[in-house]
């Protein structure tokens, strides 16, 4: 039975889930708000109402694409890393150091150097749990969760004590980078920064890596069946480290792109859960790099919708968070999809049975 034939059912399932979540969300909004219609329309339509709002969706999606991609890669190699948050901070920090403290380079050299430093920082920090796992089989869920805090707190220490811009007061940050280092916007009316294209490029690179190269074949094989990969002569322990490092590099890249595209300098606690949101995005996208883009845009859309709702009505952003949670839950509800699929498959086979099962180009 060819499953591609039933792809449209996934689409129907997603649509049904969204409708369901939105209905539940509306009921909640009706209960707490005095102007529910305003709130609902702000939430749903707000992100599309102006080019500026739409561009915010894209900008918000950029770091999520990176972290979602980072986790899709490790998950495909069956390493359950939750470490993108910490890696994003460390990578962002090393990249920011290169941006703030390497003087006198032309931009076209400086920018790649910054990105490389971020990649390296994230990869190095990612290598720690990878090494611990491949050497001693230390549970990566625990090590990555804990190392997140280590990464966040130590970068916070460094930026508060050693690299703090004296002018930044209570809210620590580095000195602002030179303007020409920052990622430019597409246009003033549609201010999506060029980080979006770096993100898309990363998606292409990772897709090619996973599905068209030796490394990708080996990574996926290790993820699917480690014993088989080892038997086939693949150095599985080394690959686990590679995969966590690639993941860390992507998260680090996400960090520096966020800094160069949005913040203009390294700010303490700049991420706010981008790494954790990445986990949800990777899982929603079923670890498929291309689907990561869609999931990230969807997720960003919900966040922006919530903000607009907060600004334009009496419903606060936190309520949007709740709707967001419901949406994520419903969209990832396998049962809904299986229900549609089973019904279709059943019908399909029944129609075959009556026709004597001759040809199968019906559905």
């Amino acid at each position, binding site marked *: 039975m060819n499953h591609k034939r039933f792809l449209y059912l996934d689409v129907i399932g997603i649509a049904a889930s969204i409708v369901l979540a939105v209905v539940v969300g509306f009921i909640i909004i009706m209960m*707490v708000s005095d102007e529910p219609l305003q709130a609902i329309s702000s939430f749903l339509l707000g992100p599309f109402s102006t080019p500026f709002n739409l561009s915010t969706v894209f900008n918000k999606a950029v770091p999520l694409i990176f972290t979602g991609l980072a986790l899709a890669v490790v998950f495909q190699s069956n390493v359950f890393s939750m470490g993108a948050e910490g890696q994003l901070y460390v990578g962002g920090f090393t990249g920011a150091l290169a941006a703030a403290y390497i003087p006198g380079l032309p931009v076209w050299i400086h920018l790649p150097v910054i990105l490389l430093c971020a990649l390296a920082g994230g990869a190095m920090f990612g290598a720690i749990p990878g090494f*611990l796992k491949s050497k*001693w*089989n*230390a*549970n990566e*869920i*625990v*090590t990555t*969760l*804990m*190392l997140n*805090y*280590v990464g966040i*707190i*130590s970068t*916070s*220490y460094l930026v*508060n*004590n050693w690299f703090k811009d004296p002018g930044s007061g209570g809210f620590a940050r580095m000195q602002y980078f030179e303007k020409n280092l920052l990622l430019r916007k597409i246009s003033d009316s549609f201010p999506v920064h060029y980080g979006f294209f770096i993100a898309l490029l990363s998606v292409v690179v990772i897709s090619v890596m996973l599905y068209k190269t030796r490394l990708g074949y080996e990574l996926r094989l290790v993820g699917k069946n480690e014993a088989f990969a080892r038997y086939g002569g693949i150095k599985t322990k080394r690959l686990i480290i590679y995969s966590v490092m690639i993941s860390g590099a992507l998260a680090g890249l996400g960090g520096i792109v966020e800094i160069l595209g949005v913040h203009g300098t390294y700010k303490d606690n700049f991420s706010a859960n981008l790494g*954790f949101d990445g*986990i*949800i995005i990777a*899982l*929603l996208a079923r670890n498929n790099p291309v689907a990561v883009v869609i999931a990230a845009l969807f997720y960003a859309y919900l966040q922006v919708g919530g903000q607009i709702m907060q600004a334009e009505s009496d419903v*606060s952003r*936190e*309520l949007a*968070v*709740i709707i*967001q*949670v419901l949406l*994520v*839950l*419903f969209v*990832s*509800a*396998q*049962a*809904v999809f*299986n229900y549609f699929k089973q019904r279709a498959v059943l019908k399909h086979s029944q129609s075959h049975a009556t026709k004597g099962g001759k040809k199968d180009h019906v559905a």
Partner: protein
Amino acid sequence: MWLNVWAQIADLTIIAVLLRCMTPILLAAIGGLISDITGVTNIGLEGLMLVSAFTSIAVSAASGNWMVGVVSGVLICVGMSYAMAFFHIKLKVDIVITGFAMNIFGSGATIFLMSKLFQATGSYNPSNLDKIPVVNIPFIENIPYVNKLFSGHSLMVWIAFLAVLFCFIMLYRTPYGVHLRAIGEAPDSAKSLGIPVGRLQYSAMAWSGVFVGLAGSFMSMGMTSMFVKDMTAGTGFLALAVVLLGNRNPIGVLIGSIIFGLAKTFETIFQTIPNSPVPSQFVQMMPYVVTVLALVVFAIRKQNRQKKGLVAPAAAKS
């Protein structure tokens, strides 16, 4: 400053701090353990604790009775856990998504309700709070040193220890507990013997809610007497680490909680010392670094034991 630290160790203040610090970790870890053992890893501990912390302090302040507060915190937590179980078991949502959704929800919902109900943004600080009582044991409270060990601790500290015992008896001495352990490992086998796997997972999640709920209410009404947004700050994740580190066993979980409690204790002690030369971030990092180190030591030991053949002697051929 080292003198200062030493003084607190010597006069056993450290014990009181330790008990206070380990209680939420221990309770949450017991909650995590019971669901984990049935094959449902509850990553939503963090969010559940927040919900309970907020509910119990709000209800306690409104009703003037700590017990009503704690019970409602626990009930809400059980309800939320049940909802998680519904999404995971019935709707087949990935358990990690369910857990993170719970965390996001817990954080968002408490902040939303705090502003809606109390017009507070960062923290909620009720003036007339009936806290979880402190147990002073007559006679013992007057004996120096011994009193610090046994007297003057919050009731929840004792409940936490009882929870370990309860969990142990339930898992190993009742048929129900054996079923819980069986379904996590061999769900098909359990199913074929007529054990209702789904229903047991629901009940395990409910137990999880009970203990996590207790942990949450202790955070807002025992450890402190206020609710601060995102006040759990990783305690739930630490508890999750303790579950895995403690080898999914109540005694292991107790030992693990003591280790992390100690790390937290030093964090607390250092933070109270004025002009400490150790940067606060280093102290803050301690529990997490300790977890990673403990995990590595644990993993190395396991590996060595396997190499030396001390594990599984029964499998040896004569």
